């Protein structure tokens, strides 16, 4: 029994123990028990993932577990990488749950929610270690069902939660059906349900079938990853679910979509055609741009983080797409670099988004609102949360020395070097992608400055924000853990290089045993590994030097009241709100966002030249949703209304339909 097997069984056992203890124990200890069992389960999974990423292999076939097909599990460096990510996020979430679910026994502390949490974590761990199509599909569906129920945790509080649940259920089922058809079709053509059989038989699959399978996989996997245009579930589900669930979903679950695309496209289908990857890169670019523009103008802190997830997933998919295109063009160095950037960004996003959602959850718990226009001033009442959230925001804004910067920089590096003999497709696509990444990074900075500046700094703009209290220690500890992961990834990302190059080799992006390619890769990334550490040192040293120099050489400081235009003391009404801060950006992107504004002016009775009151109301709708999904829903609804007479409420009529259908199938079978 090697380390992977031992840790995975420990993780599974602890998760099941967590679910059982949630059933058995009362509300005073329930959350603590579940949290403290889920955290080591995640840690064990992370150990298994690290070992697998380090090259320890393990596989298990249990034909007795699932009827007809059995369960097949196996790990390789690729699954290890994602297992490590999922395990680490689960561990942080577990610790966070102790304080977040608390002892109140309802909402996130309710029994069903706590039973489902470890099961959701376990299903997340099952997906990357699945080694056959049925096992993957079972894990995928388990993950979808448990997460859906967790999203619905607070359904009694707001109708928006039920709405989110319906959107999530519909889109996730659409994705599942696409995956089911695609993967089963692939298994049928390639000669077996296990991944090993598909790998061996993939050469016999004709190009058209492979393309259709890839497109179906793209719908399923990119939909789960939250890529535009399959994203409408994401801002809803992430915003309305309890924050520990949002963290698990955003930091871990959406990454499994990326994992699925890598597994299907590179590993099972062996690379395919260049246009697959161009399409994927285009989806990624659109998601990145659309996600960040929506995030920039969002008022709801969790909706903002959710759209930022779409953006980051878009960047990851962009990297994956370019890795595929480079590999097809024979430029293995750039391919490996792009893949490494994508994988590293997946890990980075997992770390900082877990931190940010935990921070947002802490804010929502203390103030009862997600509306950044009504926050502010939390730096004084919740200092730990503020500092940690600001750290996460620095990483998410892709500014040095944050960890987001490292991977986005790597991505830019790969995009900037398409090579001299790249075809016309790459020569055109790469510069466009550079522009996309640059634009995203720029708007990203504005987004996160808005989040920290209007959410946490200045004066409180509501009573709840003014009287907020710092979260319990377990939540702060969880955020510190996530923050430490961010720091580690920011300072020594070079440690991941051997793993990333091993994954690239496994996915046949780098020629096996090609020493030249391997050494150039090592050299180039050598430059990239040393960089982050020195960046951190340089920034810290520079800041310290400026501060010291200002003290030593500058004029003495004096205290004076802030300039208030002579309008009396400054009040919180004069501050920037999230809406007003984003207003210039919103003006720039007016054509894309098409905000709906209402200005109601009430005139004084005496004269219409005198205004008694002005009400301003603004809503920024999701245009993709309005253009694609609303007409679809309307069409389906009218179809449903039209066939209504078929269902008249008589049980016999329904049974008759079934009988007639069965007879028709049999008769056709006999006659054929």
């Amino acid at each position, binding site marked *: 029994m090697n380390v992977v097997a031992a840790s995975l069984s420990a993780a599974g056992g602890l998760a099941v123990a967590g679910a059982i203890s949630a059933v058995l124990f009362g509300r005073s200890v329930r959350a603590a028990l579940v949290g403290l069992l889920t955290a080591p389960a995640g840690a064990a999974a992370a150990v298994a993932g690290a070992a697998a990423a380090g090259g320890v292999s393990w596989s298990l076939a249990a034909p*007795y577990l699932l*009827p007809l097909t059995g369960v097949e599990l196996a790990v390789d460096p690729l699954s290890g990488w994602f297992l490590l990510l999922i395990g680490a996020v689960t561990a942080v979430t577990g610790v966070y749950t102790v304080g977040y679910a608390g002892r109140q026994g309802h909402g996130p502390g309710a029994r069903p929610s706590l039973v489902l949490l470890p099961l959701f974590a376990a299903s997340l761990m099952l997906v990357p270690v699945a080694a056959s199509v049925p096992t993957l599909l079972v894990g995928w569906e388990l993950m979808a069902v448990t997460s859906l129920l967790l999203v619905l945790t607070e359904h009694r509080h707001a109708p928006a939660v039920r709405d989110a649940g319906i959107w999530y259920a519909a889109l996730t089922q659409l994705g599942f059906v696409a995956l089911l058809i695609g993967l089963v079709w692939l298994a049928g053509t390639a000669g077996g349900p296990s991944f090993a059989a598909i790998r061996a038989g993939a050469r016999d699959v004709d190009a058209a079938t492979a393309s259709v399978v890839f497109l179906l996989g793209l719908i399923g996997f990119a939909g789960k990853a939250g890529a535009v245009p399959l994203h409408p579930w994401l801002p809803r589900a992430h915003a309305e679910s309890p924050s520990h669930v949002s963290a698990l979903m955003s930091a871990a679950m959406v990454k499994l979509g990326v994992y699925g695309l890598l597994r299907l496209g590179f590993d099972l289908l062996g690379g395919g055609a260049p246009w697959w990857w161009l399409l994927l890169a285009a989806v990624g670019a659109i998601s990145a741009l659309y996600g960040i523009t929506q995030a920039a103008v969002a008022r709801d802190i969790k909706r903002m983080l959710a759209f930022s997830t779409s953006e980051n997933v878009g960047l990851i998919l962009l990297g994956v797409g370019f890795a595929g295109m480079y590999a097809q063009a024979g430029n293995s160095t750039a391919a490996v670099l792009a893949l490494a950037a994508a994988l590293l960004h997946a890990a980075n996003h997992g770390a900082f988004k877990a931190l940010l959602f935990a921070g947002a959850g802490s804010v929502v718990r203390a103030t009862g609102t997600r509306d950044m226009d009504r926050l502010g001033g939390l730096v004084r009442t919740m200092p730990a949360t503020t500092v940690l959230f600001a750290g996460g925001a620095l990483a998410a804004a892709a500014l040095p020395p944050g960890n987001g910067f490292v991977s986005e920089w790597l991505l830019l590096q790969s995009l900037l070097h398409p090579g001299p003999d790249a075809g016309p497709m790459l020569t055109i696509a790469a510069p466009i992608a550079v522009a996309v990444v640059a634009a995203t990074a720029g708007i990203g900075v504005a987004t996160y400055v808005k989040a920290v500046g209007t959410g946490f700094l200045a004066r409180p703009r509501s009573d709840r924000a003014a009287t907020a209290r710092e979260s319990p220690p377990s939540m702060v500890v969880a955020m510190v853990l996530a923050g430490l992961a961010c720091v580690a990834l920011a300072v020594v990302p070079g440690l991941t290089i051997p793993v990333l190059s091993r994954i690239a080799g496994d996915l046949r992006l780098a020629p096996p045993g090609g020493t030249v390619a391997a050494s150039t890769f090592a050299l180039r990334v050598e430059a990239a590994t040393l960089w982050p550490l020195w960046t951190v040192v340089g920034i810290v040293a520079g800041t310290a030097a400026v501060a010291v120099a200002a003290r030593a050489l500058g004029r003495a400081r004096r205290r004076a009241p802030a300039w208030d235009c002579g309008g009396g003391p400054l009040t919180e009404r004069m501050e920037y709100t999230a809406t007003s801060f984003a207003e210039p950006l919103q003006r720039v992107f007016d054509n894309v966002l098409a905000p709906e504004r209402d200005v109601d002016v009430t005139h004084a009775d005496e004269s219409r030249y005198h205004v008694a009151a002005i009400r301003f109301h603004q809503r920024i709708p999701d245009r993709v949703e309005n253009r694609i999904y609303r007409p679809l829903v309307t069409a389906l609804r009218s179809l449903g209304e039209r066939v209504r007479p078929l*269902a*008249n*409420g*008589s*049980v*016999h009529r329904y*049974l*008759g339909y*079934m*009988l007639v259908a*069965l*007879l028709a199938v*049999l*008769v056709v*079978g*006999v006659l054929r």
Partner: protein
Amino acid sequence: MHGATWVEQAFNLACGLLLLTAVGALWRRETSALIPILTVQGGALTAIAVMLAAGHPDGGQAVLVAVVVGLLKVVIIPLLLRRVHRLVRNARETRPLVNVATSLLAAAGLCLLAYAAARPLVAVAESPTARATPVGLSLVLIGFFLAATRHRAISQIVGLLLIDNGIAATAFLATDGVPLIVELGVCADLVLAVLVLQVLTARMVHTFGDGDLDDLRELHD
């Protein structure tokens, strides 16, 4: 071809009994008569499972499956049905959607169709028992027909049980033994369905005074 051994004869008898009881369920309209008919059918199904288990090389699991089937079909389900029956005494299908004589004719037609449709199955199956597969298929069709044409809620239960017996018979006859886990899953499903229908009947009797499903139409809009 030599004369059939007594095992084969018993096997044929059990298959015949399956079909006969299905037709019997269609023929008798009193609920009180349906329960013994179903018990006999369950017994026949159990007998088939036992005989197959006896001839099976890896008999342990197959015997266990047979025991589970017997327990469910001969003991538990009739018990549940009797409880439903106690709710609606003297229940009779007074006016089925299709009258009894026509039903019997339709059953004959359904059997013909089942035999015709199952020919490819019989052709590919190796075991001699697979020749009896059409019986299972006929059971399914007759069960469906029963459920679609009768008013009483208890008739729906009986139809469902016929369908399930048919599926189980097909599974036993056409394959080389059903895995225990599959059979357990099916059994759990069935008990659940019967329980739900029992609750439904109880609520209907409570609300409407009898178990006529057409009363439910009022619930539509």
